[in-house]
């Protein structure tokens, strides 16, 4: 019985993951991309749960909700913002 309900669920989540992966890779703005990749990461967490991998799901959860956004947002803020000394020209 579990099997029967699980298979369509897995198929649906796999399809969502495929779409989300494409949207992360093809989205061109980094800021929108980190938001999309958060969604993508959570979908992966769900997928891992239905694939019976709770340990991996938990790791992915902490990675995708904390580690990635933090470092990526800092990098975006730093590179997108103006330079601290106010010039945006290339230094070379």
């Amino acid at each position, binding site marked *: 019985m579990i099997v029967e309900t699980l298979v369509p669920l897995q198929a649906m989540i796999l399809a969502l993951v495929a779409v989300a992966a494409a949207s992360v890779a093809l989205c061109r703005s980094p800021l929108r991309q980190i938001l999309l990749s958060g969604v993508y990461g959570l979908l992966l967490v769900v997928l891992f749960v239905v694939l019976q*991998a*709770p*340990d991996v*799901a*938990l*790791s992915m*959860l*902490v*990675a995708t*909700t*904390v*580690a990635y956004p*933090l*470092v990526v947002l*800092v*990098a975006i*803020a*730093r590179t997108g*913002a*103006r330079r*601290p*000394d*106010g010039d945006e020209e290339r230094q070379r």
Partner: protein
Amino acid sequence: MTRRRIRGAVAVPALGVVGAVVFWGLSGLPSFGDYHGQYGRLINDVALPERHTTNAVTATVFDYRGLDTLGEEFILFAAVTGVVLLLRKSGRRGVDAAPKDRVTSDALRLFGMLALAGGVLVGLWLAAYGYVTPGGGFQGGVAIASAFALLYLAAGYRAFARRTSEEALDPLEATGAGGFAVVGLAALISGLPFLANLLGPGQPSTLFSGGSIAFVNWAAAIEVAAANTILFKAFLEQYIVPLAAARSRR
């Protein structure tokens, strides 16, 4: 056409061929859900009776394939060292200015402290029961580190920096990573293979199940928590300090 356009145009057929080859190969896989690999079955069969760990994944990660995890811990260790090396000339070190905190609300500060305490507790719990239920050193360690990141968000940079000084974090990180190697060497010195279990299997389903898995697990938790805190700090310094410096100059 820009260089990038040309690249995209060439990439499509090239990826098409790669895709054709890869899908052709994937079609030779055993059917989904019908896997009979011997390795995993062997571990499922022996993990509980021989190792008294109810979580076969943790038994694999910390015991049967513990060497992979030793390598993995040092990947984290090396990456954090690398990030500190690469960011040593910019951020706080580059602009020597004390940052101004934007957070002024005491209630928010209190929330930050509570969040820190809560996060650390969750992290410890995750790490402690890793070999019984899902979880373990890595997940617990990241949870602890993210509690510090929350502290930054709620209470500001200074509160964060005060609680995460390099003088404390570096030795902690090194103890975690080195502790793993020491557990391995201790076995070697007592005449057993590297990383062999010195302490017997212990009781199933308790905190002490799995013998020296417990030590390795805690070493990993310490290493991951300290390393990720250093990592977050190195990145946050890139963000907070240049901004503060720019504001004070204006």
